[in-house]
């Protein structure tokens, strides 16, 4: 009969090849984005002791927010803590490479910036770092997206993206949302 064991096995093997090719195609596209376009997960593996965070030079309150480093790199530093981001608004230029560095002194948090590819977990013990280039201007939301306690729903910050010519850091290289927020 036409549905012999051999025929059945053959149809299954053929199907497996089709399915395997589809999976290979998807893997190829992912690999291309990763290698050619630098679109990777944020995997920083850099330690920061949550118990002594207030003593660390990088994450003291005065050093938080957006800074243009002497080498021209734009870095925004934040602390995610129960139940707020410090600072709760950061100013960033569009179409420029920017780096976000965030850590937590207490529990696990997470963040995303709406309408962008920026997304990371914030795990106490580590500095989460995301490199990106924002393509749209305006105010975006940056909520905590990992349950961090009963006040979790109020943990929400703003990311103000301005055109590059309106991004004017002060003499120390610092830029803040200012009184416009």
């Amino acid at each position, binding site marked *: 009969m*036409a549905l012999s064991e051999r025929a059945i096995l053959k149809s299954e093997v053929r199907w497996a090849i089709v399915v395997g090719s589809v999976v290979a195609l998807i893997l190829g596209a992912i690999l291309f984005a990763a290698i050619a376009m630098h679109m990777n997960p944020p995997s920083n593996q850099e330690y920061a002791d949550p118990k002594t965070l207030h003593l660390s030079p990088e994450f003291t309150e005065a050093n938080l927010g957006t800074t243009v480093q002497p080498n021209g790199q734009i870095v925004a530093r934040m602390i995610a803590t129960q139940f707020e981001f410090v600072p709760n608004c950061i100013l960033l230029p569009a179409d420029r490479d920017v780096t976000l560095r965030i850590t937590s002194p207490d529990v696990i948090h997470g963040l995303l910036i709406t309408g962008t*590819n920026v997304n990371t977990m914030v795990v106490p013990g580590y500095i989460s770092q995301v490199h990106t*280039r924002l393509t749209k201007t305006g105010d975006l939301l940056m909520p905590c997206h990992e349950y961090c306690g009963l006040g979790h729903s109020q943990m929400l910050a703003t990311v103000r993206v301005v055109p590059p010519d309106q991004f004017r850091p002060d003499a120390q290289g610092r830029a803040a949302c200012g009184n416009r927020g």
Partner: protein
Amino acid sequence: MVEPSYPADAHDFASDAEELERIDSAATEAPKGAVVVSAIAVAALLVGWLLLYFWIFIPRGTVG
């Protein structure tokens, strides 16, 4: 006659021989239909994935 929710007792065919005969007659075309239906589903899946990749993921820009 009550139709069982799952044909645990009642067979759809009078005998095994009849059932096998029916399978034989079905076999002239099977599994052409299944190939086409599954292929359409997988193709649609791939198209959907590529749409999100090119229309949303890539335009949102570099990240990592």
